[in-house]
């Protein structure tokens, strides 16, 4: 019974993670601008990797000769690293694109740098 519940959990986390990763790739190919693409890709990929690796942890901890502490430590390390590294990398890349005058979408309504309202 416990194995059945754990398998259901594995399938749930697996499908949610793959959904987020596919949405990230779809946004990367469909959106018009580097800033829009960055908005789609970074968030989706972070959540997707988290879901996939939680599913992998539950799946691997079910094995009869599993070292559970080892697996869970590495999984927490990977999730923490993803949640730190993805926003930092995306922020640096956005700053570099802004400095290098990366082309923006022509239907964009306003540029926040040039009309300082708020």
């Amino acid at each position, binding site marked *: 019974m416990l194995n059945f519940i754990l*398998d259901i959990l594995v399938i749930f986390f697996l499908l949610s993670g793959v959904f987020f990763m596919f949405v990230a790739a779809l946004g*990367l190919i469909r959106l018009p601008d580097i800033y829009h693409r960055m908005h789609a*890709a970074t968030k989706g990929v972070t959540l997707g990797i988290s879901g996939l690796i939680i599913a*992998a942890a539950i*799946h691997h901890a079910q094995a009869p000769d599993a070292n559970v502490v080892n697996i869970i430590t590495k999984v927490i390390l990977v999730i923490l690293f993803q949640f730190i590294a993805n926003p930092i*990398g995306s922020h640096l890349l956005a700053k570099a694109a802004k400095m290098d005058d990366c082309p923006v979408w022509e239907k964009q309504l306003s540029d926040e740098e040039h009309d300082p309202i708020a």
Partner: protein
Amino acid sequence: MLNLLIASTTHAASQTAVELSVMDRILNHAIDGCIIIVALGMLFCVIRLLKSKHLADRALAADTLAIELIGLVILMGMRFSTSAFIDGILVLSLLNFASTVAMSQYIARPHLRQKKLQGDEKLEDLA
């Protein structure tokens, strides 16, 4: 590649002669479908990598491609039912972060130097 995967897993199953339960079979089919979807996402990333003009855009596409590769490695570890790939995932994510930072520094370096030459007081430090 999928044929190879299925052949190797059935070979391992015949070696150990373990009867798979219904839930394990459902899980294996789910992992196969997830591998196909993640591979489709990698194909999208490659298309964006080839189509886009600007360098930062390509760097973003390469970043996303590497993270989809990490997801594929996780799924393959689940399919082969070995937990040895998690160390590889750590190394891959570290390399991915380092390469993204290096690419953004490479793109922004000439503009930072120009700002410094103009004697701007509000020099934004990139790092």
